[in-house]
């Protein structure tokens, strides 16, 4: 017994090193596995608070740009509304309208944004208290941003589309062929669409939107335009480079999308798996 204790004391640095190193490797591996809540995330009281404070300072510098974006979006929405008003009468303030809408939008401000790493995350200043849950979609008026991963009371972290773990269902607007949106970690303005069937008619400049096969994003949210494409060796699938509509290096304010009937659908799907 004495010898064991002596051995431990003599090698305490080595043992401490091995223990802590194993722990940090565990955290690292956990962070590389897709869609798992983590112990260490910036959706917490300390880092969320500090990021919130610093983005409060920074956002003043971009106010003009954010205003312009809001004006553009308002213009678009008003034009759409005007187009509808010809055909149906749009009542103002119908509260019951909110009961049957499929998607509900919530606003949030980006308080931290990475884009230079392989696995990038975004921190938002809204959390569980405002009804944010994991696996909700995050978009701006221009296009998609990512998917909520971790949520604390007042903050949440988002897996950016600039993350090697991110896989999002997307399609071509022209032909409705589906593919998977991934990122190769190189250019923050370019993402890749893989597994598009070789039959699909594609050309440069075509628009890519979300596919609507998941419960996260509604169908038809803009992503980007085709910049470059190559067929794989067997000529059965395309790999397409897409230039994003969103400037991921300057996101600003975002919308979080809640699918109001998600739980019902999930329950139904689980029932099928049980049988």
């Amino acid at each position: 017994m004495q010898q064991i204790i002596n051995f431990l004391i003599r090698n305490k640095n080595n043992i401490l090193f091995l223990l802590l190193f194993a722990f940090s490797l565990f955290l690292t591996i956990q962070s590389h596995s897709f869609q798992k809540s983590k112990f260490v995330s910036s959706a917490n009281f300390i880092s969320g608070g500090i990021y919130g404070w610093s983005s409060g300072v920074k956002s003043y510098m971009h106010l003009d740009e954010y205003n312009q974006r809001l004006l553009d979006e308002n213009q678009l929405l008003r034009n759409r509304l005007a187009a509808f008003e010809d055909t149906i009468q749009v009542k103002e303030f119908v509260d019951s309208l909110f009961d049957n809408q499929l998607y509900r939008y919530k606003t949030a401000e980006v308080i931290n944004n990475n884009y230079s790493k392989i696995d990038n995350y975004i921190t938002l200043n809204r959390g569980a208290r405002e009804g944010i849950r994991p696996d909700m979609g995050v978009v701006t008026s221009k296009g998609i941003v990512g998917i909520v991963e971790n949520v604390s009371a007042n903050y949440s972290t988002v897996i950016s589309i600039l993350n090697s773990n991110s896989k999002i269902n997307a399609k071509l607007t022209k032909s409705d062929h589906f593919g998977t949106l991934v990122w190769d970690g190189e250019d923050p303005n370019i993402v890749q669409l893989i597994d598009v069937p070789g039959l699909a008619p594609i050309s440069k400049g075509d628009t890519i939107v979300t596919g609507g096969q998941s419960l996260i994003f509604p169908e038809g949210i803009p992503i980007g335009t085709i910049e470059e494409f190559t067929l794989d060796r067997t000529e059965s699938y395309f790999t397409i480079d897409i230039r994003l509509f969103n400037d991921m290096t300057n996101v600003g304010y975002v919308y979080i999308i809640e699918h109001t009937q998600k739980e019902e659908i999930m329950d139904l799907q689980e029932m099928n798996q049980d049988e």
Partner: protein
Amino acid sequence: MNSEIFSNTVRFFFLILLQVLLLNNINFLGYVNPYLYVLFLILFPFNGNQTLFLLLSFFLGLGIDLFEDSGGINAAACLAVAYIRPAILRFSFGVSYDYQTVKFSSTAYGSRFSYVAILVFVHHFILFLLEIFSFAHLLLLLKKTFFSGIFTIVLVFLTLALFNRKSR
């Protein structure tokens, strides 16, 4: 001794905040960021308690990871550097390296440079290896290690020159 504890504590928190609020947003040429927080590992007293040093560097890295959402990559890199620092010290300062006498500010320029360079490159290599997490992007790994490493080394020496006046 008390002032040493104080200055290291201040340095610990100041470097974390500086890193996450300012330096992580530089993104020079898209991906080159300096990791100045290794300055804590460089300047920690050479004759300090090694167990304490391991613990502190782990928490330094974990503190950065907390902000970066990067799992435990900074913690692992800092910890590894802290663990092999005695070997780096012995290599750089040669026979004059003695646990009791050598102080960072009183070493020769050449050996001081090799000490900082080795420490920074080891740290960055482990950091980016864990961040990229595959050997498929070996070129990207080396590129990032090299350019970010140079950036960090330049910043380390600039910072040292800036704050070194009183010791002369």
